[in-house]
């Protein structure tokens, strides 16, 4: 039981290294606008791996999940509502046609 966690940690480490390789390799391919999505998706997967296994979120009580997700959720609020301004500023041209 005690020993069984070590291979898991090593496996997660290998997965993280592989994903790092993938994200670097993919960045040299022109995917157009999708490249941002792919890069961030890979980063999210890596972050989730670290959270679940290295930070033991997998075995943590529900409250810890709430706190961990809460942090990212609030960051989402900050980015989303700020971008609601930045993205729509040009919709009503200043000066008008």
């Amino acid at each position, binding site marked *: 039981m005690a020993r069984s966690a070590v291979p898991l940690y090593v496996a997660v480490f290998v997965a993280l290294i592989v994903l790092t390789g993938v994200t670097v390799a993919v960045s040299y391919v022109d995917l157009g606008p999708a490249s941002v999505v792919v890069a961030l998706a890979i980063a999210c997967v890596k972050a989730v791996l670290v959270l679940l296994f290295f930070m033991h979120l997998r075995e943590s009580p529900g409250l810890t999940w709430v706190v961990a997700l809460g942090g990212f959720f609030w960051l989402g609020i900050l980015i989303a*509502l700020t971008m609601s*301004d*930045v993205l729509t500023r040009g919709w009503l041209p200043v000066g008008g046609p």
Partner: protein
Amino acid sequence: MTTAAAVVVEQPPLHYLNESYGVRSWLLTTDHKRVGLLYLLSLTGAFFVGGFFAVMLRLELLTPAGDLLQAETYNKFFTMHGVIMVFFFLIPSIPAALGNFILPLMIGARDVAFPRLNLASWYIYVLGAAFTTYAVVSGGVDTGWTFYTPYSTMSSTTQVMPTAIGIFIVGFSSILTGLNFIVTIHRMRAPGLTWFRLPLFVWSLYATSLIQILATPVLAITVMLLGAERLLHVGIFDPAIGGDPVLFQHLFWFYSHPAVYIMILPGMGVISELVTCFSRKTIFGYSYVAFSSIAIAVFGFLVWGHHLFVAGQSVYAAMVFSFLSYLVAIPSAVKVFNWTATLHKGTIEFRTPLFYALGFIGLFTIGGLTGLFLAALGMDVHVTDTYFVIAHFHYIMVGGMVMAYLGGVHYWWPKISGRMYPENLGRIAAFIIFLGFNLTFFPQFILGYLGMPRRYHSYPEEFQVLNVMSTAGASILGIGYLLPMIYLLWSLRYGEPASDNPWNATGLEWQTPSPPPRDNFEHTPVVTTAPYDYPGREVVVD
């Protein structure tokens, strides 16, 4: 609620105030009660320094011409009034002083979860205050407490850096207090004290702490970026390289709007305690009052853009923010209705804390309703950046928060000091404050709608009569604030000794001696009943 009543007679009884003496025993204390008092002391200092600047501002505004202070001095004074009152008085006031003292008592704990961190928070506060004091005495700062770029980074020649550092530092004090309280409320409750048996003050402190931990870091990083920009003469808010000053306002208000709820939510919690205690009634709609605190904390994060309706924000974002702003009004209204309903069919005792509570409800109602004016887009265009806004937020901050703070200080004074304050003087002071407050700030609503912009050192002559009224009110208000300060100090020596539960209130804090012993309770209390379990016929209304 019950505690195991083990009567131990000691002569004289040892409590947190006399268990040890000397400066060291205070400066190195980890007792949440003593840390609370350290805060109480520093906050009172900040309040009177901030108040001094307010008095000078009002005196200057007696006449339309800027003849008492120079424009530069006036600008520094309103900036320092704002910075000191917001960051060094309002934000820490109820949570760090009263909350620190009462929270562990209320939940039957021996201390907060991290007592040393708690003391560290106070030292961080003092360090932040030291930087800000340095800024004040070394020439002052004139950017307004909002630090809008590029004025604060490229134009102002005053002490922006030390002030920014002070605010950066004091933010961590606030974060650590919030962190401490959340962990304390989650992990340190007495046996049987379930979430729905918690006093509403605890709920409101919990909601406050949520905002403190999630909003304050954004202020910290924003102030840091601002400082770097000022230092390097180039930065991300600098229009010369394509930076966007409106982005600074987004980041700033992402903290500073929720910060308004940091200030008012604990006040609301205090009012729930006062209204129930002095009408000897259970709270009307416990779960609605409790959850409205959480709702205010969460929705409070979604509305900051209503400070930017004329700032060059997109019209569409403004519409979203306006809509969300109306949503946050509802839980506040629900609280007011529930407090009012609580008084119905109570048995109301007119003690000083209740005077403050009634004052709070009335003034908060006016403050809240005028918030609806500001959330209405087309209306906000006219009244934003005028005295209407000044009046609105002083009704919330001073008419609301400071009233609740003073109400709470009086209510828990017997527990804190072991002495009663003089009741009649207390009532008179509460009445003077209510009167002075309204005379100071009500005329400012009219001034604002007439179009008098805020932060004006001189103003057109037709605004003078209303300004004179406001200044007259301020002088009454000032006397009102000095009174409690004097008689509370007086009561420390000459006040009647307080019993353990002078108000016959429910709540664990009243079931331990006044003042409480170092570890709060002789034996850890076990809770078996709902809060506000006052006697009386139970009536069920569907």
